[in-house]
Structure formats: C-alpha cells, structure tokens
C-alpha cells in the first residue's frame, strides 16, 4: 500500500499537484483508519489530502481515475503469465528508438508508468513557449503535442508489428489480451495529449493561465482584438480587478498603523492613572477620489475606452463616485446606465442608448463647450478628470481655453490616448496643444498600459 501511494504521489507531482512528504504520510495514517476496500472512501481520503484547493480537484479526480482505474489491470496482469511477456515486449520496443525521450515516455506510459509522460505533458502546458525540440519551427505547443502524438503512434506501430511478427511463440489469447491491454493504455495516452476530456487543463486554467494570458493579451493593442478575445479580456480584467482591490485594501490596513493620535491616547490613559498604556494611532483612510471620465466613442477610441470603463466601474468602491460622459460631436452623460446595469451589459448599452450623433465628425471644442456649460459643477478639487481620446478634432476649434478652465477646477486632468505614440502629432491631431494643458498624458493602447494607469490611480 505504501509503495502504491508513494507512486501515486510522484505522479500527482508530475501532473502539477503540490503534494508534500507530510501529506503522503498523513494519507497513510488516514488510510489505516478507514475501510480501504471501499473505493469511495479510499478516493475521499486521498482527495482530502492531495487536492487542497477547489481548482485542483478536477485534476486530482482525473489523475485518480487514470491511476487507479485505467491502470488497475496492472495488478491482475502482474500475477498473470502475461506480465513477463509484456515486460519483454516493452524492452524490445525500447531498443527501437533509444534516443527519443518522447518515445520512451509513451512506452513507459503504456507499460504502466505514466510518470515521464505526465511530466512531459505538464511541461508542455506550463512553458509552452520554449522552443520545440524535435520538430523545430515555432509552433511551440502544437509541435510538441504532435511530437508526443507521434511517439505514441510509433509505440503503437512497433507494438502491433511485434505482436504480428512472430505469431508462433505466443498463444493467440495472450496476444489478444496484450494487444487490448496496451491499446487501451495508448488510447488513454492519446486522450491526454489531444485533451479530449481536458483533464489537466480544467483545473489549471484558473491559475496558471491567468498569468500567461495576461502576458499574451496584455501587449495586444485594443483595436486588434477579436470578439472572442474581448470576452477573454473581460475575464482577465476581472482577475486584475480582484488583485487591485486586494492591493487597495492592503493599503487601508497598513494605513491604520499610522501616526500617533495624541488626544485619544491621553484620553485612554485616564484609565491607567495617566500612564499612556494604550497608544492610539490615527486611523486615516487614504483619500478617495472622485472620477469623471470623458470618453470619445468614435471608432477606435471606443475599443480602449470600454475596457477602461469596465475597470473603473469594477473598482468603484475605491472611489467616492464615478461619473462618465461620452462624446462625439456632443456630450451625453452615461452614469445612469452604469448605475442601473451590470457592468458588461452597461458597456454594451452605452452606444445604443446615449443620445449622440455618431455620424458627426469628432469635435473636442464642442464637447468642452457643452461640458463647461452644463456639467462644470461635477468638477471640484477632489475630482480627477480622465479624458480618453485620440485628440483628432477635425481641424475644428479645440477650445483650449475651456480645457484650461476645467483643469483649474479639478485636481488633475489625465489624458489617455489609445493611438500609437508615433501618430500623436500628425494630421488633425491637437495632441501637442492638449498635452501642454493637461496634467498628464499617457498612452493607452493595451491592457498593460491601462493596468499601470489604473494602479497609479487608486494607489
């Protein structure tokens, strides 16, 4: 039993579960306490000790199934006459491609030792961008998956050939059984590679994929995202937001250990004959800012603005109030849409419900005029005004004076430009003029830049 569990633990590690020595020992003590002949009890004990988070559970279940069900025939086989035959076959096959690790792994898998195979699979999933070894080229993952598929195929060919080659020295039942046994194994291997039942990925998705996806998608320009990637992006943003919230709350708890509050300390010291036994620190929560956003919703800018709005509204509790306006050649307030709807629905609704002339050429001047006439009161010294736009005003009056006025009214004005920096000052772009009149200009082309910006904003 001990050896079985240890072997299983090794496989579990190879498949990416964190199983420590202590856990293996616990499992063994625990197994002594329950009825191990009850397969379900056995499974429960192992699961309670091996899969210590929700994410790991599907992965564990799959591995458990593989190890204890699909490989169970081992026990039957080893007592059988077949075992030496099987071992001999495996040895002979091994000679065929002595230098191919993938082949070896597939062969071991077939012979009942999935360790190397699982390790390879895992490597394939975790560092998908390492250069492919055998196939060459830069297909990475696919190539290596293919490589393992081929290895499994080679094993199969070799096996069938060997079984068919010398029909005389094996009785036909034995041969049939061996064949069935090995083929079912190889099937399991192939399912693993092709991920038909997505065994290893199901659990890993949530954690490891996040970093990877952030890496992949973080540098992609917003404009070039496909609809599927937009949906994916939303998930990544959700995770980012959760992280940022943690960060922000961490800062709150740090802040509690701030400077000494002399008044309160003295008042409390009264209880101890005037000895300041308990020090009271000033609990100064960091200032929450008010946010006002002005979003250009014409074409390309909108693709960046929607993600910014998504993040801002997900982080709403970090600000006292978020108000948003969208504009093309005129202004419309969309705060209400965000307050009444769930974020992603609200974003979809913005374009449909805001009363704007979408056909009109973008006019920053008109927008500023309208804003200063109707909404100037939303700006005060606690407000951060975020303008997101490409600054292309179609040669219309940019009304720089009004922008200056707005800047005077609020804490700071940040301009986000979703265009590549190289194009900023060309054509009808007024960026050069705007740039000098706002507090900060930031490029906002992809998720990483956006994240940096939001992080600076809340911290």
């Amino acid at each position: 039993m001990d050896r079985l569990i240890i072997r299983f633990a090794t496989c579990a590690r190879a498949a990416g579960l964190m199983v420590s020595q202590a856990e293996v020992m616990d499992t063994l003590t625990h197994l002594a306490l329950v009825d191990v002949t009850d397969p379900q009890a056995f499974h429960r004990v192992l699961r309670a000790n091996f899969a210590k988070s929700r994410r790991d559970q599907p992965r564990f279940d799959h591995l458990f199934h593989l190890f204890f069900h699909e490989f169970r025939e081992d026990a039957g086989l080893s007592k059988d006459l077949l075992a030496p035959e099987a071992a001999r076959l495996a040895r002979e096959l091994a000679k065929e491609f002595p230098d191919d690790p993938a082949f070896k792994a597939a062969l071991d898998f077939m012979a009942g030792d999935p360790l190397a195979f699982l390790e390879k699979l895992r490597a394939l999933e975790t560092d998908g961008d390492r250069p492919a070894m055998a196939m060459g080229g830069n297909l990475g993952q696919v190539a290596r998956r293919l490589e393992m598929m081929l290895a499994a195929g080679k094993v199969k060919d070799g096996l069938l050939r060997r079984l068919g080659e010398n029909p005389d020295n094996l009785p036909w039942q034995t041969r049939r059984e061996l064949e069935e046994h090995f083929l079912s194994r190889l099937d399991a291997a192939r399912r693993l590679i092709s991920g038909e039942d997505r065994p290893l990925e199901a659990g890993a998705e949530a954690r490891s994929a996040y970093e990877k996806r952030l890496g992949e998608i973080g540098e992609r320009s917003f404009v070039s995202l496909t609809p599927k990637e937009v949906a994916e992006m939303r998930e990544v943003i959700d995770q980012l937001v959760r992280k940022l919230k943690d960060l922000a709350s961490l800062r709150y708890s740090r802040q509690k250990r701030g400077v000494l509050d002399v008044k309160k300390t003295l008042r409390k010291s009264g209880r101890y004959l005037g000895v300041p036994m308990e020090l009271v620190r000033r609990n100064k929560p960091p200032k929450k800012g008010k946010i006002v956003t002005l979003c250009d919703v014409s074409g390309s800018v909108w693709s960046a603005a929607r993600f910014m709005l998504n993040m801002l509204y997900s982080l709403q509790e970090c600000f006292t109030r978020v108000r948003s306006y969208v504009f093309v050649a005129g202004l419309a307030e969309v705060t209400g849409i965000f307050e009444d709807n769930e974020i992603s629905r609200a974003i979809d609704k913005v374009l449909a419900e805001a009363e704007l002339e979408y056909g009109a050429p973008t006019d920053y001047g008109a927008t500023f005029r309208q804003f200063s006439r109707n909404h100037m009161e939303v700006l005060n010294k606690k407000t951060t005004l975020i303008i997101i736009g490409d600054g292309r005003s179609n040669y219309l009056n940019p009304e720089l004076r009004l922008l200056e006025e707005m800047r005077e009214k609020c804490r700071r004005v940040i301009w986000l430009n979703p265009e590549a920096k190289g194009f900023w000052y060309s054509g009808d772009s007024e960026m050069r003029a705007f740039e000098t009149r706002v507090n900060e200009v930031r490029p906002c082309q992809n998720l990483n830049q956006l994240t940096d910006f939001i992080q600076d904003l809340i911290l």
Partner: protein
Amino acid sequence: MEFENVEAVRQRLEEADYICSPEAATVVFLAEATGKPVLVEGPAGVGKTELAKAVAKCLGRELIRLQCYEGLDEAKALYEWEYAKQLLYTQMVKDKLSEIISGAGSLSEAVDRIANQEDAFFSERFIQPRPLLAALTSLKPVVLLIDEVDKSDPEFEAFLLEILSDFQVSIPELGTKKAVHIPFVVLTSNNYRDMSDALKRRCIHLYLDYPDRDLERRIVQLKLPGIGQRLGDQLVDSVRAIRDLDLKKKPCISETLDWARSLVVLQVEELSPAVVEETLSVLVKYRSDSGKVRENIKKVADKAGLTWTASS
C-alpha cells in the same frame, strides 16, 4: 477516538441537526482521529461554520470561535496583558512594595529587588486569554473554529502555523504553552484569497459545494419539519433552477431555509411563478439578480415543474 467510523460521524452529526455528505463525514472522522485541523472551503452559506457547530454539539464540546478580519492581530487572537488589572494590583500592594524597597541602599538595588518580584506581575493571573489561547489551555477538549481565515492578513496566517502544527504558542514572558488537549480545529475560507501552501499542508481539505437535490431536500425537511411534501419539493427544485442562472450571488442553503420559513409563515401551500416573484427578495440579494430571475421566470418554473395556473 470519539467516533468509531465514518458512518458513526454521519449519524451523530445528523443527531446534531446537520446533514452532511460522505466527504464531509470522512474528513471529520479523519481529523478527529488524527488530531489534524480541517480547512473547509466553499461558497458562502453552504454550512461551513455550521459544520463546526454541529461537531461541537455532537461531541459535547465547547465551541470557541475566532472570527477573522483584516487587521486581526495576536493581541486579539491569542492573549493580552490586562494592564488595568496589573495597575490596580500595584496600587493595592503599594505598602508591600515600599516594604520591599525600604532599606535599599541605592536606586539600582531597589530596582533589582522589584525585578525579583516581576513574576508576580507577569503571571497567568494577568493574562487575558483570547480565543486561540483559550482553546489551547482549556481543561476540557474544545472545538476551535477559525472563521473566514481568508479575510485575515498573510502575517496572521503565518502566525497560525505554529498553533496548527504543534498546538503550542510562545508567550515571551511565560514561555511556551502547550495544548492541554488537542482541540478539533476547523478553519473556514470563502476563497477570497488563496491560502498559503504551508497552511494547506497542515490541514485536511474539504470542499463543501451546494448540496445535491436529495441532500438539500432532507436539510429543508430537518430544519422545517412542518413543511408540506409538495411544497418542499417545489421549493428545492426552484432554488436549484435559480442557482443555475448566472447570478452575482447564488442563493445558498441558509437562503433556501429562510425562503422556506417565509413560505410557511405566508401559509403558501403550493409554489407558483407569481409566488416566486413576490417572495424573491428573501432568496436573491442583488437588484440585478432579481431582475435576471424575473426575466427567466419561465425557465425556472419549467425546471421546477411549477404550474402557472396555481394562485397564491
């Protein structure tokens, strides 16, 4: 060992009004037998805290509860010196103190003499035990519930490690305190953040999910024996159908029970979509969620087998 086997755990928990899955029973059994802490994870309201209470009840032990929150520190979790009491005592034994230091030749001699008496002031008499210390020093075995451990700071989690693996704590003035009895420890987590591997390694893991239909039905029956067979079925089916929708916060068992209670109070005999909509506020806690349920009421009704004609 308090329990003979897994089945006994299940039965005794049931006697304590807690119906659990075989997984939970197995984990409780193992934890009790080997003195290991249990880390219970799962969505809010599936009975994580309730499990600890039920274990305490069926073992006849006291439940000591430590509610974790951000900023929880040792002083609130472990122990605190009772300064006020110390000062009060100093005042009262002032005469004795002056007796001790009378005749001291120099200031340093006086201080030395006082220092010899230090033990009198830093003794267990002046310690106010907080939940963790109370659980360790209790003369009777207890159940220690560390609730929502994911809400605590990472530093606190690290501090828990010593307690969870060795069941001892160090108090600088008094030395190391070992547990009189190893308490049955239950940690609960809502997955607000991931617990460290070191903590996980010391615990047996249990994931409580929303119960399956039969289990939920039995729980409803147990907590509300008066509920009609038909209403009970409809209720559980509707909750399960609502849970299948993509909601911000899915209704949990405690909400199912609340809902069942309100339906009993309202003397509803049979659920209809209209009744579901009227009483939705007990079950769903966000406006956007209730909107979604209303939109999908037909789907819910179909799944739960509610009839449209039934009047409330």
